[in-house]
């Protein structure tokens, strides 16, 4: 059964990819969806066995690299963390599969799409079930690959190509960090197995490591390097630019990969490495600061985006920031809990957005939507529900995790705690604003789109409605049901999967903070929500538009709408010089220049000339032959009798230089003849 969790999605992938043309779109859809449903069923059992009954287990599948002390194997580790992730991944994945069969129903490449989705699920499961860093890395790269393939699913669209490449590039930076982190881990621990590494973690916490000629505290360095990996995958500030662009992919992909599962891999990584991070407070500080900044930055950017999916993408980015800073404050359990809740409501939001886009024949600009509430009451309900859960409306799922997050950060009483609390509250306000702005612009107000789009409007079909309903239920209750289990004070649920030093845990303090502070996020949320609804309502929008035209307003709007100009800076200061270097230096000067002349071109030319020379030696005259023999004899005689003098010259390096000189000589000769030809 444990193996089936990995095997069934892989089977789905192979079936849909290899036999897609026989199965047809519908067949592939049924196959993959049913296999995924089965996987989900198994995951629930695993969650029950491992999480609730508390029997973690590992499976050793097969050896992989066995080289002296290097002992990476293919193994599966099922502990509560994995169990939770499994349930989240497979449930969302199953629903997205089901949703896609309808959403993508008219696409001729449906089998390919379904196979990619299954492939993604498979790799995601590899990532979360791996029992060593190396296997996790395989999953990590695999989901990156699947993400690339899915963003680029409509590969004839230039924008999709660009986004896919951007996602790949940005993730490479992160993967580089992750790779270095794993190397550093191996240097310190001599193993990449989770068990060995984490068991040794408390005992090696004073180790030092030399990196770039400087000595660092090993855990801090490892922690930061791993966090660089997480930054890439979880779109934290700095490497986040790919995530909004990834919305070029089909909407179910955005829901599955770029909201619910893959982007949370970074959070999972940090939670998984909690035994290490607990001994690297500096790394935790960095993580908390980065997470807080991401949460705030993404939320502010989301305020003024006009694309329906882009707003939700920035919201995802911001929520990821929340999760990361929770981990940075040593509350990995809260991070994971928020991850699970977020998966439901964000998938709901995306699928709802997909439903809108589907209904409006591909229109996703919010300025051309509006008034859809009456036309699409079901979708409207679901989107509203998702938004409420997102902003943390009391007793919906977001409330339990997000408010708890802010509380513990306030109760942390450190620099990073206060920093994240302030930014988190700001982000909560912005979240609320843009969520209700979205609702207001899309569903309320008057229709602003072309008449044609509104004529063809239709409510989501059955296969699309079912996932929405289920995710809606999830968004309603997952927080309430999971709170005590996962983040209740002193819960035994996590066993050893998440290590939290008693000194770092502020769960208790959080219960005793000031009541006003506890209510602050809610108040901010309410204000933000009202603002969001009213500013964007038709009655106030002319006034707002005037405000936007003032110098300050315009600057602020441009700054936020242009996403804090991150892309501009990257393109101008990194992208352009890199491209310039790549074309002018490495391509033109080195590859086509030096290497071409000394390499293929030079060798062919040089050899041709050499051959002609040798050919001329073969004159056919007997006295020439005898003369050459004598010459050879004389040469050998010299070689032997003046051995001591000559020995200096018999040096491979000199031969090499001689060879180069020889070749350049021939090339120079060749060039002059060419010039002569030109002149002649």
């Amino acid at each position, binding site marked *: 059964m444990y193996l089936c969790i990995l095997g069934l999605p892989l089977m789905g992938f192979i079936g849909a990819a290899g036999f897609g043309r026989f199965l047809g779109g519908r067949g592939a859809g049924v196959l993959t969806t049913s296999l995924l449903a089965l996987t989900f069923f198994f995951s629930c059992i695993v969650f029950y066995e491992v999480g609730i009954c508390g029997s973690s287990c590992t499976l050793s599948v097969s050896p992989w690299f066995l080289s002296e002390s290097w002992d990476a194997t293919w193994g599966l580790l099922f502990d509560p963390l994995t169990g939770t992730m499994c349930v989240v991944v497979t449930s969302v994945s199953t629903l997205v599969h089901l949703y896609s069969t309808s959403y993508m129903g008219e696409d001729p490449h449906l089998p390919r799409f379904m196979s990619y989705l299954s492939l993604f699920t498979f790799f995601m499961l590899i990532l979360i079930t791996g029992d060593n860093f190396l296997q996790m890395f395989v999953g990590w790269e695999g989901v990156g690959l699947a993400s690339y393939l899915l963003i680029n699913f409509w590969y004839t669209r230039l924008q999709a190509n660009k986004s896919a490449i951007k996602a790949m590039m940005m993730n490479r930076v992160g993967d580089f960090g992750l790779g270095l982190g794993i190397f550093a881990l191996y240097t310190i621990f001599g193993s990449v197995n989770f068990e060995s590494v984490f068991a040794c973690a408390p005992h090696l916490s004073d180790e030092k490591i030399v990196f770039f000629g400087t000595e660092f505290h090993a855990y801090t360095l490892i922690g930061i390097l791993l966090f660089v990996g997480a930054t890439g995958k979880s779109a934290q500030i700095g490497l986040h630019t790919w995530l909004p662009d990834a919305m070029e992919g089909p909407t179910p992909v955005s829901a599955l990969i770029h909201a619910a599962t893959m982007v949370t891999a970074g959070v999972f990584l940090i939670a998984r490495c909690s035994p290490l991070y607990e001994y690297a407070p500096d790394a935790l500080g960095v993580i908390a600061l980065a997470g807080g900044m991401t949460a705030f930055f993404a939320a502010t950017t989301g305020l003024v985006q006009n694309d329906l999916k882009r707003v939700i993408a920035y919201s995802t980015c911001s929520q990821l920031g929340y999760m990361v800073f929770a981990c940075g404050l040593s509350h990995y359990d809260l991070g994971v809990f928020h991850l699970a809740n977020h998966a439901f409501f964000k998938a709901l939001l995306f699928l709802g957005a997909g439903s809108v886009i589907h209904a409006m024949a591909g229109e996703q600009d919010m300025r051309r939507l509006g008034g859809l509430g009456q036309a699409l009451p079901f979708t409207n309900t679901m989107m509203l529900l998702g938004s409420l859960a997102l902003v943390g409306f009391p007793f919906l799922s977001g409330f339990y995790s997000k408010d708890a997050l802010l509380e513990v950060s306030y109760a942390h009483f450190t620099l990073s705690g206060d920093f994240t609390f302030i930014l988190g509250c700001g982000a909560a306000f912005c979240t609320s604003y843009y969520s209700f702005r979205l609702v207001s612009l899309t569903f309320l107000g008057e229709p602003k789109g072309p008449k044609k789009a509104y004529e063809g409007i239709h409510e989501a079909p059955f296969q699309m409605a079912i996932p929405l309903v289920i995710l809606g239920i999830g968004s309603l209750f997952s927080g309430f049901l999971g709170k005590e289990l996962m983040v209740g004070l002193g819960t035994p649920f996590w066993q050893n999967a998440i290590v939290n030093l008693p000194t770092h845990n502020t769960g208790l303090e959080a219960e005793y903070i000031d009541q006003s502070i506890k209510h602050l996020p809610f108040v901010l949320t309410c204000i933000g929500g009202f603002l969001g609804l009213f500013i964007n309502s038709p009655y106030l929008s002319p006034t707002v538009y005037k405000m936007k035209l003032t110098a300050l307003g315009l600057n602020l709007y441009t700054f936020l709408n242009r996403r804090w100009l991150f892309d501009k800076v990257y393109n101008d200061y990194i992208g352009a010089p890199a491209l310039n270097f790549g074309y002018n230096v490495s391509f033109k000067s080195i590859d086509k220049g030096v290497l071409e002349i000394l390499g293929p071109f030079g060798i062919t030319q040089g*050899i041709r000339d*050499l*051959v*002609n020379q*040798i*050919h001329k*030696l*073969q004159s*056919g005259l*007997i006295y*020439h*032959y*005898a003369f*050459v*023999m004598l*010459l*050879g*004899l004389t*040469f*050998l*005689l010299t*070689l*032997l*009798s003046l*051995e001591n003098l000559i020995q200096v010259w018999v040096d*491979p390096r000199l*031969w090499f230089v001689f060879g180069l000189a020889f070749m350049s000589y021939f090339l120079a000769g060749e060039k002059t003849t060419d010039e002569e030809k030109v002149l002649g």
Partner: protein
Amino acid sequence: MFYLFESDFLGLIPETFLLLGLSTLLGYGVWYEKGRESEMTSHQLWVGGLCLAFTFILLCESPLMNMILCFNTLIIDGMSAYLKALILLSTLCIFGLSFSYLQQERIKAFEYVILLLLATLSLMLMVSSYDFISLYLAIEFQSLGLYVLAALKRDNEYSTEAGLKYFVLGAFSSGFYLFGASLIYGLTGTTNFEDLGILFTGVGPTDLFTQGSVVVGLLFLSVAFLFKISAAPFHMWSPDVYEGAPTVITAFFSVAPKLALFGVLIRVFYLGFFDFLFSWQQIFFFCSLASMVFGSFGALAQVKIKRLLAFSSIGHVGYMLIGLATGSLQGLQGIFLYLLIYLVMTINAFSVVLSLRTHEGEPRFLLDLKNLNLKSPILALTFSLTLFSMAGIPPLAGFLSKFYLFFAALDASLYSLAILGVLSSVISCFYYISIIKLMYFHKAEEVQLKPLVGIDGQKGFLLGITFFGILFIFLYPSPFFLLSHAAALSIS
């Protein structure tokens, strides 16, 4: 004197049998030639082949494994047995190729067979030589036979030119040999290899004068031998002679003398002058390098098939000299293995070339190979695999031998030789593959196809068996490893 008859002739039974057999054939030819010239060569070939086969059996079944005979002038040991067997096999293969060739070229001289047998006998004696004098006699014996064979087609100006060039330059190199040998005799007072070896044991850099003089003698000797195996820079004669001589004789030239001369080289330098390793290592190092380079670069410029094969054989000699330069058992084993595989590949290549005959005559230019694939797919496939094997592409026999030699070179710390060997084999790949391109990748309408003359049974058999060898030696090489190891062990 009486000892001579007691056991020495026992050791010489194969050679004696061959000599008697060829004398009988000579008598038969002289007395019965008149009136049946056309059948005579065929008869002679059959009987001569039988003679060779019996000699081969006598050689293999000889009870005497190690022996020094005829007053310390000849020796029988593992190496001589191995090389003699290969020489006999190669001559047998040449006989097999000759049946149709002699008919097609209208060579009605039965002396052809006699001369080949005499050359074989001399090569066998060469391998067994244990003394400068006996070696010289054997070399001259062999050379005289080969000069005549090269000029066999008296009415062909290429052939006579080849014979003459070979003769003049061969005499030149014999002079070198005699000068070197007399220098050494003058310095040491002995001509026997083993005596020399014992005399030089432990000669270090103490006695500089003697050492220097011996080295000069050594150099002259080695130049003579290197000329005979056509190693660069003493190779200039070989493309001309190979081109001019009748094709079967070219095949014989490119195999049999090399087998014997490598035996001689090993005998002289490993037995007599091993203590001068660091001096003669340089000679062979340089010649090996030069041969590989000239072999591969020279071949690039060729447009004639036989000249190309001549340059290819110069390249192969270069690779074998690597083994000689190592001065180790492994290197010797590598040479012996290489010789065997070289024999197989060369016989195969020449069989293919001889099979390419059309009604208009023998093909001479590489362009005649154009679109061979359409004329005869099987021949094209065979030839391309042989060329791949010569180039040293992995699953074929040629790879095995080269690989072994390069490893020996690496073990002996001759890194530059190994690396340059690999590089030059890359270049040689180029011209081998360009032939394959000629055979396969041309538009059908570019040349009009002339039908090939049918292949006779003997040639077909040779083609098949050598092709089989090239393909499958790699799968089960251990018997050949063992054989070459046994041959190498007798020297150490």
